């Protein structure tokens, strides 16, 4: 997993609420057996017309948002299906950070496993960043995970909370499975005890 410390990048505003994982990556792209190559299909139905041509009205198709790395999105981003193809598609598209007032639980977890930082802010804070993101390539937003703050192009600074274990893993690009296997004696002991107490499991 790629490390995440601090990025300075173009942010795109997507104020629509309840952007679900079907919107982020529709079903026909879930048939892959790989993690890579999904970026071209991200937001497929909003991004392309039925004939496959680009929809020029879609925010990420606009010139000002080419090379975007940050999404500033409406409430309840990533709701619906558990498909990790959603963060895989975002990452492959170039998104390293999504900022919203809330995220669906599974999507939120999935982001951390893939080097994407999801940031939860208040409505007022989000509004401020949404305005900043409207400047497109005329502006750069700074997301600093180590210091847990976001800086707008005007220099306004917003701090954010993040789980310290997740922060540690993201900053260092750590593999969860490796960390868990260090605790294998606890798992062994638990299984032994469980075999006695609930043998039907």
């Amino acid at each position, binding site marked *: 997993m790629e490390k995440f410390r601090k990025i300075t990048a173009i942010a795109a505003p997507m104020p629509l609420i309840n952007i679900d994982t079907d919107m982020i990556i529709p079903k026909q792209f879930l048939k892959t057996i790989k993690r890579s190559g999904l970026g071209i299909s991200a937001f497929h139905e909003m991004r392309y017309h039925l004939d496959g041509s680009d929809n020029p009205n879609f925010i990420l198709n606009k010139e000002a948002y080419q090379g975007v790395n940050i999404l500033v999105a409406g409430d309840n981003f990533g709701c619906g299906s*558990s498909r990790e193809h959603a963060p895989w598609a975002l990452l492959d598209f170039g998104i390293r950070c999504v900022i919203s007032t809330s995220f669906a639980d599974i999507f939120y977890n999935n982001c951390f*496993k893939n080097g994407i930082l999801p940031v939860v802010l208040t409505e007022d804070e989000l509004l401020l960043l949404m305005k900043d993101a409207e400047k497109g390539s005329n502006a750069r937003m700074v997301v600093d995970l180590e210091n847990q703050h976001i800086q707008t192009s005007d220099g306004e600074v917003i701090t954010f909370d993040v789980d310290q274990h997740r922060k540690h893993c993201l900053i260092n690009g750590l593999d969860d499975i490796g960390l868990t296997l260090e605790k294998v004696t606890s*798992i062994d002991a638990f299984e032994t005890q469980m075999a006695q107490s609930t043998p*039907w499991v």
Partner: protein
Amino acid sequence: MAPRTLYDKIWNAHVAHEAADGTCLLYIDRHLVHEVTSPQAFEGLRMTGRKVRAPEKTIAVPDHNVPTTLDRLKGIDNEESRIQIDALDTNAREFGVVYYPVDDVRQGIVHIIGPEQGWTLPGMTIVCGDSHTATHGAFGSLAHGIGTSEVEHVLATQTLIQKKSKNMKVEITGQLSPCVTAKDITLAVIGETGTAGGTGYVIEYCGEAIRSLSMEGRMTVCNMAIEGGARAGMIAPDDTTFEYCHGRPNAPTGETWGAAVAYWKTLFSDSTAHFDKIITMKGEDIAPVVTWGTSPEDVLPITASVPAASDFNGGKVAAAQRSLEYMGLTPGTRLQDVTIDAVFIGSCTNGRIEDLRAAAKVVEGKKIQDGLIAMVVPGSGLVRLQAEQEGLADIFKDAGFEWRLAGCSMCLGMNPDQLGPQVRCASTSNRNFEGRQGRESRTHLMSPAMAAAAALTGKLTDVREIL
């Protein structure tokens, strides 16, 4: 000991390791696997030389991609679907997990066959790379969806890294009115709480109306907990639960059964246990409902009319406007005047025997509207078999429905069962998202009885006027 909720009790019984910051390794009792969210996880194991830690607790079945037409054993036309199903087949056999291949009569939607085969039992922790894993909470287990990275983590370690959610109680008091079902309960709750209302919580559903539900109905309620944003939904086990589990292929037997039931009877929320959020609804107040928009929270009684965007506040105004345009609906139109093109009865929400009985009761001896796309897709091969033995299949076929083989089918259309642009469907599935059943298709969620009623009239219909 301090009073605890059902969730607290199951959580505490599964913590294999707790770090100083409260991060826990939660032991997983059952890991369900399907073909869409697992190939990258098995590939990860291969690349790191890891094994499946507990193959006997890992149950694999193909369901999302499988065609539901009778000729499916001849092979799958879509190459990508075929590769994904073949990958599951190879992975299941290579890693030695429990496996129900597509030609096994026990094959079906993973959330239907888990309970059916007795893999799902009270008090367990159950995960699957699928958000509708919440279904299994109906047994008084802690069950939720995970991503593919977590699938790999569970395969390798039989644990998940977790932090505890908050406790939420959803109480449905009293009794349901005639023709009001578990689907109406779960949709009505989401209509009340919104799709983010449960974010950060595990919901325990309780109250007389929930207690009165069969296991099938309870599974329908818990299935859509995720649509309300909750990590999981659960219902304390009782005699209804034990009776359902007894005699299932993988349920305990003999003395072990007695010990298991004795333990399961301790799985309830203590009367003074603390809930961080409580929602109470009267069963009598719940009507047969349908969704009008593109979020499961867009719920209204069938007797209502299409709302206007201006009826909402904040970010919902723009979202409602977008939904109305997508759905092709004009504010003020009576929902019962909305004509449909398709009916889908099935899915992990409503593909069980009781759902098929409810739908069959509505259409028995009648014909559906000409020209409708109408299919009934049983949730498993065994549900299909039982429905045929009970005469339900003939009722559906005589009425004009297609009678299909088991799978996820038109709930998400990863197989050929998809709708075209602007095609409007009365559906017993769980999501009405844009493009869910096919690009630009339009989904109205409802109960099996309501979908059956819509098939008869060709419009969204109040089933109470038919039965």
